[in-house]
């Protein structure tokens, strides 16, 4: 939580013709937006292109922004819409397939196990239906409240809570056998 609202201030400055303010917005948000888009697409190139497109849309739609302290929601709305459009426009397949070849344990180079885990998890998340993957990304990675997610996705917070539970159960069902995680009785 920020004390002031630097993004609102930057948007006002940009609307007044200060291009440096737009560059400040880009530098401040390109990392979070890039990570968000990547976790929705699991494709580095697509994520780079979509992040660029997000800020282009932001540039075009900047005058429409109404300062309500919801800059992040507004920006993520743009990113989410772009990701949905991209997913619709092409049949996307996971960047890291679940059937990726794995070296036998003990023969791998250092850090291989960690990488293998990451690949398996990424593939599991990518395999989720879009409406569940969005909830997981927004809730787990972006630490967004269900109310904020509700404003972003246009879905009631209670529905999103249910979706998040379903998504986590599906991931658990996939990851526990593959990664050998013992069930801790957390359900």
């Amino acid at each position, binding site marked *: 939580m920020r004390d002031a609202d630097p993004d609102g201030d930057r948007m006002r400055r940009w609307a007044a013709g200060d291009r440096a303010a737009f560059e400040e917005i880009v530098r401040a948000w390109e990392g979070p937006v890039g*990570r968000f888009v990547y976790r929705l697409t699991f494709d*580095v190139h697509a*994520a780079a292109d979509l*992040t660029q497109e997000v800020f*282009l849309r932001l*540039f075009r739609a900047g005058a429409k922004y109404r300062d309500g302290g919801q800059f992040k929601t507004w920006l993520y709305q743009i990113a989410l819409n772009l990701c949905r459009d991209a997913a619709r426009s092409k049949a996307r397949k996971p960047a890291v397939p679940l059937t990726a070849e794995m070296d036998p344990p003990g023969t791998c180079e250092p850090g291989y196990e960690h990488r293998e885990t990451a690949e398996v*998890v990424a593939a599991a*998340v990518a395999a989720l239906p879009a409406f569940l993957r969005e909830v997981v990304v927004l809730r787990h990675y972006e630490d967004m409240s269900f109310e904020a997610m509700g404003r972003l996705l246009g879905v009631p917070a209670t529905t999103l809570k249910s979706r998040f539970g379903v998504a986590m159960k599906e991931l658990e069902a996939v990851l526990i056998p593959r990664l050998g995680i013992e069930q801790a009785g957390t359900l």
Partner: protein
Amino acid sequence: MSDFPDVRRALDAVPVPPLPPVDVAAIYHTALESQARSARRWKRVAAGVSALAAGVLAFALIPNLELRWKTPPMAVVVPPATPPDPRVAELIDEQRKLFALLRDSNAKHADLQDLLLTLARDVADRDTGRKQELAELAAKLREFETVTARQFQESERTNTALYNVVFAAKPKGDQP
């Protein structure tokens, strides 16, 4: 946040590869190109609408179009009589009244001028008579003065003669 700790740990294990920084210059360039494209599109739309309007206008005017090889005779166009505006009629009436008043005042002015000229002539005539009378009186007065002066001289001469006759004949010392 305490639900599914293992799944959450697994999710946290997924790294995000470094993404290239956003090219702000490319954003400006793309936005400019987009604006230029939009301007061109609007220009084309405007040209199309203008052409369509011209076509509609021409289509509407073609039935009234006549092709003539010679100069047509000049037609005198008499505009239809329109009922006069009541305000104009009122103004004309007022103007007529003003002209009538002006005519009357001109006639009165001419009469007065005649009267004044007559009076002036009369005064001049009378003045001339008076001057003649005065001249006659002055002449009579001068004649009277001349007569009086002559009589005074005659009287003085007579008195002198009498004085000489009476007092100059006796010598001094003589007794009467």
